[in-house]
C-alpha cells in the first residue's frame, strides 16, 4: 500500500466524523497553543530584560567594593569585624591610567532633604562626574550637565531629574535656582529629560551632584560604585584586568573589589528567564499529554466502531501492518491538524499580546513551534499505538461477524 493511499484513506475516515475530528483537533490545538503562547511570554520577558540591560551601556563594567566569593580568605575578616576597604575617589581617578578605559564615573548614593522656597521633600542624591551622562545614556532636558572638571573639585551645582523638577518648580524655569540639600546649597545647572527607570536608578527622581560635593554632604569618603565604560566591546576583558591590577596595586596588593561586567549579569538573567520559559512550556506540555489520552480513547472507540470494516480489509488481503498504519496515520493526521491550528492560535495570541502591551514584544521561538508540534504528534502516535495494535490483531472472522 502506498503512503499517499494510506493518508487518503485516513483523511476520508477523518472527514466522515466531523464532530469527533473537531474535538480532537481542538484538544491538540489548545495544547500546542498553550505551549506556543507561554513560551512567547517567557521569551518576551527575557528580551525585555535583555533590552533593559543593553540600555545600561553596551560595554559597561561595574566596580563594587569588597570581594564576593564563596570561599577563601574572607572568613577571618568577617570574624574580626572588618569591612571591605573603601573605594576612594583616588582609585577612580587612577583607573584612567588604563588604555582600555574610556570613561569613569564614580558614584556616591544617599538620600537627603531637598528644599526650595517653602517646598521640601526627601530625595535620592547621587554624586558622580560629567562622564556619567554618556555612560548612562541620560539626555539633558534644560541647561547643561555637571561641569567636566577634575573629580576631586567640588563645585556647588546640581542637575535634577524630571520628577524633581516638576514637583519643585512646576512651570518655573529651574535653571540658576539655588536648591538646598541638607546643609549645602547648589545652583541648578540643568535638568534631565524624562526617561523612566533604566537599570538600577530612576533618573527622573534624582538630584545629581559633583562627586566631591556629595562626599562633603554625606561626610563619607567611600564610593558606592564606580562605573567604567571600556573603549569597546572587545576591550571589556582587558579593561577588567587593568582595573583589578590598578586597584590591587593601590590596595597593598589585595584584590578586594568585584568587577561585574554586563555580560555576566546579562547571562545570569538570561539563563534565569530561559529556565522560566522552559518551565512554562513544560507545564503547558502536560495539556498535550492529556490530549494524547483523549486521542487514545477516541481511537479505541473508532476501532470498535469500525470492527467490521477491519474484518473486510483483512478479507481483502490487508496485512497487520497495513491496518496498524491506517489507524496510526489517522491519529497523526488528527494531531497534525490540531498542531497546525494550535500554531495559528498561539502565534495569533502572541501577536495580540504584543499589540496590547507595546513595550513588550512576544515572538514565538522556532524551537517552541517545532517542539510543540513534535510533542503533539509524538503523543498522538504513542497513544494510538495500543488502539491501532488492537485493530491489527483482530480476528477477521469475528471482526466480520461483529454488529
Amino acid at each position, binding site marked *: 500500500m502506498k503512503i499517499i493511499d494510506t493518508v487518503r484513506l485516513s483523511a476520508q475516515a477523518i*472527514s466522515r466524523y466531523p464532530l469527533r475530528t473537531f474535538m480532537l483537533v481542538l484538544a491538540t490545538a489548545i495544547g500546542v497553543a498553550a505551549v506556543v503562547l507561554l513560551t512567547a511570554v517567557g521569551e518576551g520577558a527575557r528580551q525585555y530584560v535583555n533590552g533593559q540591560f543593553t540600555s545600561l551601556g553596551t560595554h559597561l563594567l561595574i566596580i563594587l567594593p569588597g570581594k564576593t566569593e564563596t570561599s577563601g580568605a574572607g572568613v577571618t575578616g568577617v570574624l574580626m569585624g572588618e569591612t571591605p576597604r573603601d573605594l576612594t575617589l583616588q582609585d577612580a581617578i587612577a583607573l584612567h591610567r588604563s588604555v582600555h578605559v574610556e570613561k569613569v564615573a564614580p558614584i556616591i548614593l544617599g538620600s537627603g532633604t531637598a528644599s526650595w522656597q517653602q517646598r521640601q521633600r526627601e530625595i535620592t542624591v547621587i554624586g558622580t562626574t560629567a562622564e556619567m551622562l554618556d555612560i548612562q545614556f541620560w539626555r539633558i532636558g534644560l541647561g547643561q550637565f555637571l561641569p567636566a572638571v577634575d573629580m576631586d573639585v567640588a563645585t556647588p551645582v546640581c542637575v535634577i531629574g524630571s520628577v524633581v523638577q516638576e514637583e519643585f518648580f512646576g512651570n518655573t524655569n529651574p535653571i540658576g535656582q539655588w536648591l538646598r540639600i541638607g546643609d549645602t546649597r547648589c545652583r541648578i545647572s540643568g535638568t534631565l529629560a524624562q526617561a523612566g527607570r533604566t537599570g538600577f536608578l530612576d533618573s527622573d527622581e534624582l538630584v545629581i551632584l559633583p562627586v566631591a560635593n556629595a562626599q562633603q554632604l554625606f561626610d563619607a569618603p567611600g564610593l558606592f560604585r564606580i562605573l567604567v565604560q571600556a573603549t569597546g566591546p572587545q576591550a571589556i576583558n582587558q579593561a577588567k584586568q587593568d582595573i583589578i591590577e590598578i586597584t590591587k596595586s593601590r590596595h597593598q596588593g589585595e584584590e578586594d573589589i568585584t568587577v561585574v561586567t554586563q555580560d555576566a549579569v546579562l547571562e545570569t538573567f538570561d539563563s534565569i528567564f530561559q529556565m522560566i520559559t522552559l518551565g512554562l512550556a513544560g507545564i503547558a506540555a502536560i495539556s498535550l499529554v492529556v490530549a494524547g489520552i483523549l486521542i487514545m480513547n477516541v481511537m479505541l472507540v473508532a476501532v470498535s466502531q469500525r470492527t467490521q470494516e477491519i474484518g*473486510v*480489509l483483512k*478479507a481483502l488481503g490487508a496485512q497487520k501492518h497495513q491496518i496498524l498504519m491506517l489507524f496510526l496515520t489517522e491519529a497523526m493526521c488528527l494531531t497534525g491538524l490540531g498542531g497546525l491550528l494550535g500554531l495559528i492560535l498561539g502565534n495569533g495570541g502572541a501577536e495580540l499580546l504584543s499589540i496590547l502591551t507595546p513595550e513588550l514584544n512576544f515572538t514565538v521561538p522556532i524551537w517552541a513551534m517545532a517542539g510543540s508540534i513534535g510533542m503533539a504528534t509524538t503523543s498522538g502516535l504513542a497513544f494510538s499505538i495500543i488502539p491501532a495494535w488492537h485493530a491489527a490483531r483482530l480476528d477477521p472472522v469475528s471482526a466480520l461477524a461483529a454488529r
Partner: protein
Amino acid sequence: MIKLRGICRNFQVGDQIVTALNHIDLEVQRGEYISIMGPSGSGKSTLLNILGLLDRPTEGTYWLNEKDVSRLEERTLAEQRQRNIGFIFQFFHLIPRLSARENVELPMLLAGKSVDARRERSRDVLKSMGLADRLNHRPDQLSGGERQRVAIGRAIAMEPAALLADEPTGNLDSKSGDEVIQVIEQLNQEGISLIVVTHDPEIGKRASRHLTLHDGEVRCDTKRQL
C-alpha cells in the same frame, strides 16, 4: 485447485469444546460451481472461512494450488487470500464513506497497484456489472442489488481463482437476488470457481455440485455436471 484432507475446526465455548467441522475431505476443481447447504450451525460458514483462508483449521491439511496453506503464518496467509480468493457477504460490507469505484479499488490499493491500473480496472469491472453510471455513488446512494454488485466487483478486482459467497442473496429481494446470481454465474462461466453458501434451496439447486453439511460433516456431495 483446492484439496482438503481431514479438516477439523474446534471452538472453545466456555469450558466446552465445540466441533464445527469434523474431518472434512473435499476437492474442488478450477471453474467448478458448488453450493453448500445445511441447517444453521452445520458448519457451512466455518468451512467457507477456512476455504477463504480467513480461518485456520484445528486439524487437517489444506492444499491451495498444490501448496500447503493450513499452517501458514498470518502474513503469507493474507498474501494468498489477496491473490486467490474473492469474498462476498450477506451484508455486502462495503466501506460506507468510499464511492463504488473506491470500494472496488480497495483490494488493489492494499496490494500496492498503481493509480492508473486501479482506475482502469475498477471502471471495467463496474461496467461489466452494469454500474457504469454509478462509479462515484456512495453505498448509501445505491440499491441493495447495486451494492452487492459493487461488492462482487471488489471481490473480483484482483482476478482471484475462487469466488466465495456467504448467503449472497440473503439480504435482497428476489429480483435483485436473481440479478446477483446471474452476475456470479456469468463469472463462473468465464472460468472462476464459485462456492456459494446458502439457505435457499432454489439457489442451491442451480449449482452443478451440491454439498450438504450436517453437524460438521459432509452428508451429501453430488458431482453433477451441467
